[in-house]
């Protein structure tokens, strides 16, 4: 496959598309509401000049910004522009039927969220700030976080720490697709066309995902790029993408207490059980390559498949988190084939998540016990970037991660993320073992769909009449 046939206009895409800013471990996300549209537009216009792009090396700090539909509307984007965005984006993460798609029910229902629910203050924008050191973050916050006189107010602040290990103690964020024409080259089976992660480029169907294309009259200053498909319309979507942001609280004490107890019932030790649920060992070694131990040589191993080495799930259980959120070559049609992989490529995400809340290691977690409710909140600010919310994020969440029926299973929603009462089946010889009635370890505490525009689109938004 000619992976780099089209090069991406990296200087017009925000930096988050190209990088998780791993070298900028300190961060803060400011969820903003628009109070005065004229002032807010001025702020955005100025900000556009300092927004970090996907071109070149980012030093010291990074600034990115994304908008919800209400944000676009309040800045004055005309209805014709809004209508060009996908329905999932327009309806938002809390639209009632979406709760079933995403698994946001019971304790995870939007009514209990800390932010983003229909009953709480409307989120119009998110300002994403990243820095190399705490001092640098303070500087960044001083420069960008003081919003007096900008027509914006801070609705909610999120801590956003970068760490290789998520709160359950597992090396996270190892598997990321390489974006053709943008990322450094990856293996062909992990290289995905730019149009899956940026609007205005060819996607894995060889087509262009729907995006807002504007009548030239709506862009009198000719700030936006022309539609590369030649319609003569101006492309508000080009070099932009959708950003999924979800605050996922992790109940670390319940997790380890429950696993300790479950592993007492003949499921090996708790770490081994947790590793089977994750599909990788704490240091990152994939179970499919190293089913018995956390091999230090494999901590970042990612160029592997499932079907040939482990069709039955005897090494890495079928229901393991990493296997179901990125099944590689496991699924129909023709598991093990290039066709299977080419279809997997239509359901990928760029993950950009960050941690929040204090660490709680396993010993401390066990000391608290499952019922000694852990009142501190900690978890993951899940962030995913994709060009199609329905075909990528929502599909992965609904058809794979939260589905009890994934790949022939019966009642096994994701062992980490699923609702209470689910089963975790560990395929084994001579026959399977089952861990029944898992409680919920993860709760949704907030979330929204954003549009992460290209730089020219930001300027257009800042210049709206």
């Amino acid at each position, binding site marked *: 496959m000619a992976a780099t046939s089209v090069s991406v206009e990296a200087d017009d895409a925000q930096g988050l598309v190209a990088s998780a800013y791993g070298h900028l471990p300190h961060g803060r996300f400011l969820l903003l509401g628009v109070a005065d549209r004229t002032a807010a537009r001025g702020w955005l216009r100025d900000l556009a000049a300092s927004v970090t792009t996907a071109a070149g090396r980012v030093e010291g700090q990074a600034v990115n910004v994304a908008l919800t539909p209400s944000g676009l509307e309040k800045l004055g984007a005309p209805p014709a522009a809004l209508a060009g965005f996908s329905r999932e984006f327009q309806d938002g993460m809390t*639209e009632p039927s979406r709760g079933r798609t995403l698994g946001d029910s019971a304790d995870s229902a939007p009514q209990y969220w800390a932010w983003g629910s229909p009953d709480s203050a409307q989120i119009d924008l998110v300002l994403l700030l990243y820095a190399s050191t705490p001092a640098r973050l303070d500087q960044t916050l001083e420069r960008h976080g003081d919003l007096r006189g900008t027509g914006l107010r801070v609705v909610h602040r999120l801590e956003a720490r970068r760490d290789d290990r998520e709160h359950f103690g597992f090396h996270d964020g190892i598997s990321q697709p390489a974006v053709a024409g943008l990322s450094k080259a990856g293996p062909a089976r992990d290289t995905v066309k730019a149009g899956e992660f940026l609007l205005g480029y060819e996607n894995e169907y060889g*087509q262009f995902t729907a995006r807002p294309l504007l009548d030239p009259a709506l862009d009198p200053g000719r700030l936006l790029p022309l539609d590369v498909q030649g319609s003569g319309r101006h492309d508000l979507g080009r070099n932009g993408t959708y950003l999924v942001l979800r605050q996922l609280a992790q109940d670390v004490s319940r997790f380890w207490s429950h696993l300790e107890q479950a592993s007492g019932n003949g499921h090996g030790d708790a770490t081994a059980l947790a590793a089977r649920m994750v599909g990788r060992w704490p240091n990152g070694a994939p179970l499919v390559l190293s089913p018995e131990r956390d091999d230090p040589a494999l901590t970042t191993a990612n160029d592997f498949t499932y079907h040939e080495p482990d069709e039955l799930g005897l090494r890495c259980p079928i229901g393991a988190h990493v296997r179901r959120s990125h099944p590689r070559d496991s699924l129909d049609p023709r598991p093990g084939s290039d066709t299977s992989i080419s*279809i997997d490529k239509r359901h990928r995400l760029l993950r950009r998540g960050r941690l929040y809340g204090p660490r709680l290691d396993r010993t401390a977690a066990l000391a608290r016990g499952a019922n000694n409710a852990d009142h501190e909140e900690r978890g993951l600010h899940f962030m995913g970037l994709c060009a199609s919310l329905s075909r990528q994020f929502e599909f992965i969440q*609904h058809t794979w991660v939260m589905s009890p029926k994934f790949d022939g299973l*019966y009642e096994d929603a994701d062992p980490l993320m699923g609702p209470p009462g689910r089963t975790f089946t560990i395929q084994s010889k001579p026959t399977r073992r089952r861990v029944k009635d898992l409680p919920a370890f993860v709760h949704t505490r907030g979330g929204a769909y954003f549009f992460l525009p290209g730089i020219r689109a930001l300027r257009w938004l800042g210049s709206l009449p």
Partner: protein
Amino acid sequence: MTEQRAVTIVADVKPRRGASLTRLLTKMGEDAAGNEVLPLGELASAHFARLIILDAAKDLDGNPLPAHLIYMSDIDGSLENHLEELVDLAPTGLDQVFSHCQGYPEAGARTHMTRTAFLTDHTVNAGATYVNTVGRTLRQVRDEARLREAIQTFLDSGDFEGVEPEAVRAAIRRFVQAREDLRWATEPPPAPGPAQRAATILGALGLPLELAALAPVLLPVLPVWALLLRLHEARDSSPTIEPTDAHDRALAAIEDFTAQNPFSALGPRKPGLVRLLTASGVLRLVDYGARYIFNNGSLTGVKTIHFARWVFLDDRRRMIFASSYDGSLESYMDDFINQVWWGLNAVFSNGVGFPKTSWLVLGGSQHEQEFKDFLRRHEVLTQVWYSAYSDLTALNIDNNAQIRAGLSSPMSRAETEAWLQRL
């Protein structure tokens, strides 16, 4: 072996009774299995059933089409038996529903016989029918699910670590044998008898023989047909129209409550003789393929469809497609695009507004977004949808059947090991 059948009853809704019927069906739809009007869950013969109201409309020439009430079910056994069961189950419920329709017996004239006669008279044949696994009855699906549950509980209660696979299987067999309510499972399900096998073979020969006999006529005509079709394709318009917000939300509001979903879609056929012949011919091929080739768990690789049917309505001017499938609409449509694109194109490209095809099978559904919009736009609300096993996917059902089959058949060690992995 009992065969499955698609029942479709189409009745015209009386003028000005549509709103009342919609209210009634909406209420029934809240509990399709247990509602007081027509408790579909009590039918022993129905795997799936649905009731749909199609609003009054106009055909492509502007002629009015009356509103229709459509009842569909996927059943075991004969139509007569199913209608008997339906009428016996809820005579007054049927009255409540079908008295909204033209031609239903008047209040004084409603008897078992007149009700049954009405339903029989309004039954129409499907142009094509798909059954996931021909011969698997509702009873079998439910019994085998219960069997698997029991075996799983049995395995949970024991420790089989290090036990030889044959010994594990033997223990499972002993457990099943000892349970009076499960002992049936040690026998394989009924296979088709000699008469049935002969009928299947004859049926399988029917279409090929017919085509062979007609070959002298068909062969010279085919190139002409192909060229005419290509001309039509070049001319046909394929507008890009998104479904409206209200339509989309109404459909989303009834989706994704269980492991399965219903899909019902209605559209006008493209006008003209070429399209009529193409649509009719393709449906015959689909019906044949579904019955004699894709009759065991997979429709050209798609393993998530339980039942499906295509039915012409209004003198073949419109067609309705109805299916019961596993997972979300998004995954269903992706399966279509990825695995049965050619078959879909051949059938649905005869519908007005389908994304542009060439030579019947190319293009079309490969235009991902246009195709998804087309399907969603033509989808109609399934007011009442009933599944007799909404927590089971087709893959689950098939696996359950393999578990049962493995109790009786002789097995090598490798087969025993593989069978144990089904649990």
